[in-house]
Every structure is written in structure tokens, then in C-alpha cells.
């Protein structure tokens, strides 16, 4: 079957595939190069001098990059924890039961995944001012729940839709307490969903910009805020270094979850928010 035509089509395919993948990686390349550049002026295709200065600066205690990194990790971890805590029960209700008004509940949960954050955050800011929650880490964590929680509920409702509650009934009939039943029967069965959903809730929180900027009032300086400031003030080398640090968790999470991402799982929907 190696006629001329099929060979032509095949090389066309390989070529377009190569262009596609190159295009998808390309914007990350100048960021990576800048982080090791010591001045990189037009029209040089590559920097003349290389240096670790930007990385040394980013890793120093005085720059605030590390403090911002820990703060961002903390905010995303707490937002994820709260989303799991609240999202797992809600996912169970939606995945395992039929009830009146279910469509409305589903619509209410779906709405925040589609309506842009800027449309609601201005109003939330007004509320949070009167509650004293603006410019605080607590306020930022709360507002991050808007994109993370619905997404966790959707993932868990998918998990519970394929879950057989008969095992719980058996454990209970054999004398296990509700707590033990949950710990030894329910949890192991839904653990993959919690892990994948949780990792993606973490990433959704990790990538929030405008919610943090407005509610944190610029005082809660997470990594994306720092990155934005350096990018708009023209410190390209430091921007490059922070950018590399900032994308690392996402790539690690992708490596960990690649197997689970068939595209059919609800997890993929979360990518729309990152």
C-alpha cells in the first residue's frame, strides 16, 4: 500500500502533527530561555550571556517569590480541602438519587462553571467589604470555592452514578458503624474520584487571577499576581523564572493523572477553568 498518494498523505499528516505540537509548546520556550538570560536584546535570536541571576533572585528570601509560592499552595490546598469536604456529599446526592427539582439543583451548580468570574466578583466584593473579608486570605479562599466546588460536585456525581451502595448495606448489616462503613467501604471505592477531582480543583484554584486580585485587594499576592506584575513591568528574566515555577504543579499533575483523562471523565471539564 505504499503508493505515491498514500505516502503523500502520510507525510502531510506527520507534518501537520509536528506543526501542531510545536505550536502548542512554542509559547513556553521564550519564557524558559528568558529565565536563564542575562539581557537578551533585539535582534539576537538567543541571549549572548547566560546567567542564573533570575533563579537566584526568585529563590532568595528577599524577593518574596518563595513566600508567594507557599501562600499560593496554602490557598489552593485549603480551597481543595473545602471543595472535597462539601462536594463529595453533594456529588453523592446528585449521582445516586432521583428527586424533584434535581434539574434546578444541577443548573445552579453548573452556572458558576460557565458564567465568568468577573460577572460575580464585583458584587461579592461589595458583600465582603461589609463582612470584613476583603484583603484577607480567608476571603480569597472563599471566593476560590466558586470555580472549584461546582467542578468537584460534577466529578463526584459522575463517580457516584457508577457506585453500588449494596456494599454499604452489607457492611452495616454485619454490624459496622456508619463511620466504619464510610472509612472501609465507601472511601476506598470513591478514592480515585476524590484524588483526580481534588488535583484538578487544586489546579483551578492555582490558576485564579481576577478573583484573587479583587478580593485580595492586591495584598494577598499569589504567584499569578506576582507573575503579572513582573510581566507588565518588563522584568522578563524574573517573569520567566516565576512562570516556570508556576507551571510546574500542573505538569506534575498531568503526569500523575494522564491515565484517568479519557476526556469522557468529568475531570476534563475543569480544564476550561484553568
Amino acid at each position, binding site marked *: 500500500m505504499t503508493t505515491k498518494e498514500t505516502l503523500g498523505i502520510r507525510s502531510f499528516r506527520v507534518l501537520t502533527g509536528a506543526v501542531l505540537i510545536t505550536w502548542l509548546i512554542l509559547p513556553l520556550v521564550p519564557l524558559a530561555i528568558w529565565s536563564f538570560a542575562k539581557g537578551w536584546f533585539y535582534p539576537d535570536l538567543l541571549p549572548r550571556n547566560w546567567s542564573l541571576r533570575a533563579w537566584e533572585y526568585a529563590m532568595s528570601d528577599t524577593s518574596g517569590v518563595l513566600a508567594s509560592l507557599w501562600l499560593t499552595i496554602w490557598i489552593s490546598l485549603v480551597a481543595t480541602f473545602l471543595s472535597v469536604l462539601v462536594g463529595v456529599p*453533594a456529588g453523592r446526592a446528585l449521582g445516586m438519587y432521583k428527586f424533584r427539582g434535581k434539574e434546578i439543583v444541577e443548573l445552579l451548580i453548573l452556572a458558576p462553571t460557565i458564567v465568568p468570574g468577573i460577572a460575580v466578583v464585583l458584587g461579592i466584593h461589595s458583600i465582603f467589604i461589609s463582612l470584613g473579608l476583603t484583603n484577607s486570605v480567608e476571603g480569597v479562599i472563599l471566593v476560590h470555592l466558586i470555580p472549584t466546588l461546582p467542578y468537584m460536585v460534577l466529578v463526584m456525581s459522575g463517580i457516584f452514578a457508577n457506585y453500588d451502595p449494596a456494599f454499604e448495606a452489607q457492611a452495616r448489616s454485619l454490624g459496622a458503624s456508619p463511620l466504619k462503613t464510610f472509612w472501609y467501604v465507601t472511601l476506598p471505592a470513591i478514592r480515585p474520584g476524590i484524588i483526580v477531582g481534588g488535583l484538578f480543583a487544586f489546579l483551578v484554584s492555582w490558576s485564579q487571577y481576577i478573583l484573587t486580585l479583587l478580593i485580595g485587594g492586591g495584598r494577598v499576592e499569589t504567584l499569578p499576581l506576582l507573575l503579572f506584575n513582573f510581566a507588565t513591568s518588563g522584568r522578563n528574566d524574573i517573569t520567566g523564572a516565576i512562570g516556570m515555577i508556576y507551571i510546574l504543579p500542573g*505538569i506534575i499533575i498531568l503526569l500523575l493523572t494522564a491515565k484517568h*483523562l479519557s476526556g469522557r471523565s468529568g475531570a476534563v471539564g475543569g480544564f476550561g477553568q484553568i
Partner: protein
Amino acid sequence: MSDRMKIFLLLAPAMFIIVVLFFGGLLTGLMRSFNYMPVIGLTDPDLSAYVSVFTDREFYLSFLLTFHIAFTSTVISSILAIGAALLLRRSFVGRGIVNFLFQINLTVPHLVGAIGILYLFSQSGSFARLAAEFNMIQSPSDFPALVFDPYAIGIILQYVWKEVPFIGVIVLANMQSVGEDYESVARSLGASKWQTFRHVLLPLIFPGVLSASVMVFAFTFGAYEIPAILGANFPAALPVLAYRKYTDVDLAARPEAMAMAIVIALLSAVMIYFYLRYSRRRIRG
């Protein structure tokens, strides 16, 4: 405990958070856009914020620009994503690695992509340097303005970069669950490759493409940081304009910002409604 009680207790915490935060925020924005805020003594709602927004030329320019950004990005991303999925559905050597590379920017935040596009396409960026290397331009200003430009090319490039894999992964999963049997039947009955794609595969994957497109459209219409990095100062994208109004030193501009936020919310709701209606009709065929 009855099932009803159980369902209520399971749902209550999540519903409380979503209703209070999301719908509370939306409602407060709506009230403030009407200058209605009893807490600070504003008890007579009026339409002044909407009047000043809808009589402002900048708002219309900004709205049109934002619509252009969202529409163009969504259409281009969807078409390229279908193409990419067609390419990646076959088995070939190194498929695992290619799939991983295809998905890698799904986890890269939009902000990083926007900065990357800036470094690639600005007038002193990588492509301008490449053009200078081949003597195609004499100075940076000879390079076409692709960022901060009136047509928002840089912003659209960023969205296409980010959303092709997003729609692509969903379409790919759709294709895999449909399988290739229907296409084989069409081919064996004499349909051409194009006919098979147009009349067999495309209708089958269309609902998936549409639902992903809806998310992309709503996101690209309401995103702030990408147009803030890559967009022109005037007209700015609607979310950028709303943010500017909200943080204006003149507090009187805040209701106008709220009115713009409500416009964004309404438009995303209307768009989603039309898209869903259309997709449902398509499925019923």
C-alpha cells in the same frame, strides 16, 4: 432517615456556598447596578448607570471587540480541534508521547500562555527577531503589530493556543466512543472520505464540540488577564473595562462597572441558551 432528608442534608452545604457566594454576588451586582444599596442609604433604584454605559461609545467598541475575540477564538479553536482529533485518533508510533504533548498546555494557566505569546509576537519578540535575521524587516516597527493591536490578534492567538487541546481532548473522546464502524459502513456503501466525515462522523461528534465551544465562548468573553496582558488600551475588552471602572478613584463609576458585569453575565447566559437549543435541535435532526 428518609431519602428526602438525606438528599437535603447531603446537598445543603454545597448549595449554601453556591447560592450565597455566586448568586449572592450576582444579585448584589444587579442591585448596585441600579444604584440600590439600602446599607449605605441608597433606597431609590434608578437606571443612571445603564444610561451612562449605553450612551458611551467606548462601551460599544469594547463590546464589539470582546464579541469578536470570543467568536473568532471559539470558531477557529473548534475547527482546529476537530482536525487535531482526526489526526490523533489513529494509532501511530510514539502516540503516547504525542498525546502527552498535546495535553501539556491544558494545565498551563492562561496567564503564562499570554506572556509566552507576548514574547513570541511582540515587535521585538522571537518572530520579529527571526524576520530580522532573514532581512525581512529593518527595524522592530516594521514587524506587523500582533499584540496590543486593534484586531486583538494576539489575544485570539493565545486562546487558540490554549483551547485547541481543550476542545480536542473532548472531541477525541467522543470519536473514540463512537468508534469507526459507522464510517466503515458509509465507506463500503460508496461514500467519499469527505462525505463520510461530513454526513456521518461530524453529526455524531457535533454535540460534544458544541458543549465544549459554549464553555470556551463564555470563558473568552469574560476573561480578564489575557486581554489585560495582550490587548490594546482603547478599546479594551469588556472585563478589563469593567475592572477599570470598578477600581476608578471616582466611586461613582462603580455602578457602571456593575452594569457591565451584568451585561457579561446576561450575554453568557443568552449565548449558552441559544447554543444549547441549537445543539438539541441538531441532535433530534
